[in-house]
């Protein structure tokens, strides 16, 4: 009888292991990465010397959420270098919003050739992502697909750089203090690739990967300028982090030959930054908890 019990346990273990495997496989909802496959396209049209710009200002309407204090006590090196570290989700000064990524999402050059059919070559110069004071500089970064990203560690502590999986594959690398710069390349166009440090979980950065170089990040005064834009009609998107996936604003902009297109964006309101009430599953909402 007892040996039968042992067989029963072993059978149960096998069934549960199988269930674990099936359950894990079935819950995968992320889109499978296909590195490089969405960056194919013909070479861009040669410059006609009549490129223009898209510029504007990003503002925050209403009272901006206060930056949250970060507890860096888990690593004394972080505390000593950045004693007053706060979140960079909403950097608002006089109503102007920094760290917003503005880019051309779609459109037609000269009203005919779809922007999406072209793929611009990656710039020779590497984009730089520095870990300084236990936070990333810059907080938001844009690169052209296949452009090199140089990752440096300016802190007296070990970081790990973790590019999380989306269309681009997961990449995680430890970088001790004093170690040489790491180089990483993102092949698939993707807005955004969240970068984090699992050593210091408050450290976050966002990298946008595009097929073209028509993007900019808003400065502290909220302004941005996208240069070298061929004349045409474009869909311009402003992306800002917040919550789990961030928020996008869209605008149609026309760039005349050798001229300037203008697109101002306003974020704000109750839907951004933090939940107005405790987020609940639609199917199992508990009304009594709504006022938390």
């Amino acid at each position, binding site marked *: 009888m007892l040996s039968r019990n042992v067989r029963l346990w072993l059978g149960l273990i096998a069934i549960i292991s199988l269930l674990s495997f099936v359950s894990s496989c079935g*819950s995968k909802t992320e889109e499978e990465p296909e590195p490089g496959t969405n960056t194919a396209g013909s070479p861009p049209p040669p410059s006609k010397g009549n490129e223009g710009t898209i510029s504007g200002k990003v503002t925050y309407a209403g009272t901006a959420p206060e930056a949250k204090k970060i507890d860096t006590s888990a690593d004394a090196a972080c505390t000593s270098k950045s004693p007053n570290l706060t979140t960079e989700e909403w950097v608002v000064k006089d109503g102007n919003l920094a760290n917003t990524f503005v880019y051309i999402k779609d459109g037609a050059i000269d009203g005919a050739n779809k922007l999406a059919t072209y793929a611009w070559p990656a710039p020779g110069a590497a984009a730089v992502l520095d870990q300084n004071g236990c936070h990333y500089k810059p907080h938001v970064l844009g690169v052209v697909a296949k452009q090199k990203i140089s990752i440096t560690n300016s802190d007296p502590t070990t970081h790990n750089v973790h590019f999380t999986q989306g269309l681009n594959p997961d990449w995680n690398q430890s970088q001790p203090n004093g170690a040489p710069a790491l180089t990483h390349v993102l092949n698939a166009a993707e807005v955004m690739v969240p970068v984090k440090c699992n050593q210091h979980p*408050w450290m976050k950065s966002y990298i946008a990967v595009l097929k073209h170089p028509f993007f900019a990040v808003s400065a502290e005064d909220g302004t941005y300028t996208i240069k070298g834009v061929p004349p045409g009609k474009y869909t311009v998107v402003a992306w800002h982090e917040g919550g789990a996936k961030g928020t996008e604003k869209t605008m149609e902009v026309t760039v005349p030959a050798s001229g300037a297109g203008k697109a101002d964006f306003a974020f704000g309101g109750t839907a951004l930054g933090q939940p107005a009430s405790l987020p609940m599953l639609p199917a199992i909402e508990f009304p009594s908890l709504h006022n938390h």
Partner: protein
Amino acid sequence: MSKALHRFAVFVACATFFLIIAGANVTSHDAGLATSDWPLSNGQVFPKMVGNLFWEHGHRMVATVVGMLTIVLAVWFQVREPRSWVKRLAWGALAAVIAQGLLGGLTVKLNLPLVVSAAHATLAQLFFLITVSLAVFTSKRWVDAEASPDTVEGPPLRAMCVLSLAVILTQLVLGATLRHSATWDQDLPTPLLVAHICGAGVVTLVLATTAAFVILRHRGETYLARPAMIAVSLLVVQLALGLAAYITRMRSPYDPQPLNPMVAVTVAHVACGALVFAATIVLTLRVFRIIRAKQSEYRLAHA
């Protein structure tokens, strides 16, 4: 029967429970990839335990200790244990802890793929099942117990206990998959969350019914009634912790970092889940030991 061996088996089971808590802390702090190498951490055996490396490397150190304890346990069983099936189970414990270590390494090297991470968390519970079982099998009461027929008419307790164990394990698998499918700064996937909540309802129904029957039929037999009472009491605590974990976890994507309330509650939820499982294992084994199978069950089992 060696009293020292039983005490050591209990100690290993307790150490395994502590290891589960250490592992849960790794997940809740999002520390699984605090270092990209394995088995060393940042190329060192004893790295500077700062930031989340404290949790990840600390978990590895506790796991190493539990692995060594399991080696001693397995060898000790071969020397002192007369029952061959218990000896084999002790080897099974060693095989499980080795597989668990390799899964832990694999999950780091592959950057925490959901399948491997969930399997790592599930195998942790199964290893705990084995160590708790070894502790039960070596107890004096187990050896001295005499089987008696379950004369009262009603549902077969053996089958109910196995069903309880099966639904709890399924719920643990669902919970492990849910926890590893999103980090603290991401929203939990709704289908898995709903499945886990529904699973809680099923576990409550099955375990509470089983425990009620055990307590009602064997009120005077503390050997059976006590684990049933403990399992149900822990289940109540677990349901409360589950609700608290849901509330704190739904807020965490808006926090600047994994905050203590979310970490403490989710780790406690994992730990209490393991305890519910352990209490049900003890109850099931004792029921199998004490209550002789009815002829109908016996025929069914041998059909």
